[in-house]
């Protein structure tokens, strides 16, 4: 019997090692140029293609520098409403727009997600006191409220071996009582309103709130429905807005690290 057990144990270890060595555990890199995102990835949209310092629309130079072009009255893109559908950039008010591969889009205020040229002010760090409290150990509780499950799936992916959010000391926890803040996904359905407010109240102060995805920010594709509030209600103050449908895990990670003042991890 002892022999059998030993053989079984050795076989298991062998199988494990065989599987282990077949795998490459490359962690996702956070650099803007080496993120490995494919050319069709739809990140931050911009108006007009900028070739060097000259702005062009449909390949035709518009006869002004890029910055002048940007300052002119371009239509506003609201990243908080965008679901990054391919159709969204086809033509807006006669202006050609295009998605870039830039996944960095998280902002500290709702207004910062409104952009006319495509440039946005990325999230800034919490104040010094909050950074000292949370900067190296952040525990978050997810509340899905009238979502489709897409944002949850990407939030769950943050904990896998590729994105490995835990390497930065950020983790999801089981109870709001264990948490430093909540992450809200979904357009906030009438049926989740109470549970969301109670969960928020259950988190001890000081706390942060992160709104993830077009639905939590603006109601997304469900904004017109009577059954949802159309995003996080104003009674809950939001510290970080992460646009996307759903946001790529790198967009979320980038936003969280900026919030914690740990942008030094982000290779600029």
């Amino acid at each position: 019997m002892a022999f059998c057990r030993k053989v079984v144990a050795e076989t298991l270890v062998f199988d494990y090692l065989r599987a282990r060595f077949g795998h490459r555990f490359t962690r996702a890199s956070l650099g803007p140029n080496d993120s490995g995102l494919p050319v069709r990835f739809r990140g931050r949209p911009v108006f007009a293609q900028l070739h060097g310092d000259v702005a062009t629309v449909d390949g035709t130079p518009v006869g002004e520098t890029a910055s002048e072009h940007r300052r002119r009255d371009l239509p506003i893109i609201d990243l908080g409403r965008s679901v990054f559908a391919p159709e969204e950039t086809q033509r807006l008010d006669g202006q050609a727009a295009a998605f870039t591969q830039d996944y960095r889009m998280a902002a500290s205020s709702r207004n910062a997600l409104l952009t006319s040229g495509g440039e946005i002010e990325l999230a800034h760090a919490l104040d010094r006191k909050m950074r000292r409290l949370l900067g190296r150990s952040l525990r978050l509780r997810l509340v899905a409220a009238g979502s489709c499950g897409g944002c949850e799936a990407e939030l769950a992916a943050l904990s896998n071996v590729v994105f490995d959010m835990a390497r930065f000391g950020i983790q999801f926890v089981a109870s709001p009582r264990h948490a430093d803040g909540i992450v809200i996904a979904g357009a906030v359905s009438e049926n989740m309103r109470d549970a969301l407010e109670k969960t928020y109240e259950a988190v001890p102060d000081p706390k942060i709130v992160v709104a993830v995805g077009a639905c939590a920010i603006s109601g997304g594709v469900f904004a017109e429905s009577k059954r949802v509030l159309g995003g996080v209600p104003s009674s809950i103050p939001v510290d970080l807005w992460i646009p996307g449908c759903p946001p790529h895990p790198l967009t979320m990670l980038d936003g969280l690290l900026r919030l914690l003042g740990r942008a030094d991890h982000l290779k600029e």
Partner: protein
Amino acid sequence: MSTHALLTLYNRRCVSVADIPLLEVEEFAAALASSIASGWRIVSLFGVPEDTRALRLCAVLANDDRGLLGATCALVRQEYPALSTSCRQAVRFEREIAEQCGAIPTGHPSLKPLRRHPPDHAPSAWTLPPKNREDFPFDVVHGDEVHEVAVGPVHAGIIEPGHFRFNAHGEEVLSLEIMLGYQHRGVERLLEGSERGRAVLVAESIAGDTVIGHTGAFCGAIEALARSHKTPRAQTIRGIALELERLANHIGDLGALSGDVAYQSSAAFFGRLRGECLNLLMTISGNRYGRGLIRPGGVLFDIPPTMTSEVLRRVERLREEVRPVAELLFENASVQSRFDGVGVVSAEQCRAAGYVGVVARSCRVPVDVRHDFAYGVYRYAQIPVATAWSGDVYARAIVRWLEVQRSMEFIVEQLAALPRGEVLVDCGALRPSELVVALEEGWRGEIAHIVMTDAGGHIRRHKVVDPSFHNWSALSAAMPGNQISDFPLCNKSFNLSYAGHDL
């Protein structure tokens, strides 16, 4: 039964609404009961306001062995004798009709609200008394040392909201009641009221892990009503995307099942490989879940030859990498002992209740839309139906692994032989006064989008049935007799959608 009570139709083929039999409610109930006794099951049963005072009940049935669909209708007043008394499969559907349309099926065992929302598909002249969830208490089991355990809607993990109420005796579960509706966003109303470009985005957000499945069924219905014929190339790309979605979710589920029995190594490996599948979808569509790919008339993104070879290479590598991990999981005795005999669903329960998808195939009920109601690329490339016998967590895991292997084979075959041509054709106005049933085998099971147009060619009713709608009751049925501590494992082996159910 006499088949004149049922109009035969086919997946994604339109019929005129006028051709559907319009029965008296007693005949309708008898037709449902006798059809189900002779091997049919309910795909959907829903209400459409006919005029200000009458509701049209529509039943869509499926006969999987014969590959046939059937439709029949009845006009009812607000109060009508419940169909559930003679037809068990109608119970949940009638709860839904009572909630959506304000109808009162008398004699129904329990009209507990499914989603908790005011009626949004009621005939305009009906008076609708408000219904409170509080008027429908949870089931209580009486007895010494019987205790209730309440979980949710905010759970311990990163999952969607739902409320579970257990009655337990010690560790043993006596009953489980599941209360959903927290994710209710009013999807059907949005699909009916939005213009097409907006509605397709809503369809992509019915269930975020089933973007390809739901959008494929949505577009299948719209294309049939517009008589728009996709090119073979578009059909094949949709098939490849659907199988990639299945791969991502099945592999992710195998990882999550590993995690729930504390086997961290395969959990970590599968977790990474799931990401590879999502990244393949992102390479093709620009989004990890395939958003933006499928549109009425075909697909927005082609797979050019350079991408074909890249995707082929990555799928081949995935094939090599996933096998040793699956062996690690399935050949491990301690994992087997945790999967074995937990959360059993029997074939009899399955047939009686009309479960679909992985849950049905795990208890030797071989239903698969790709096989039984073949559409698109699946008419030319058959995927064998994977089944298992034991109906437990192990069966649901092994069916997923079998399907993973077959989906990879399918993708490799299809990429090597992509038909030439365009990928997007025009999809114009909808034909008036028609009904179409579009079924799709999503990774969880049968997705149904049933669309009825009015005399002006506008959408009169858009009914969505996610496989989770059928299968949530399977989880309740599987739990009694199991340990309460096995619930997370059991729940994960079903992995049903809250959003897809709640709509």
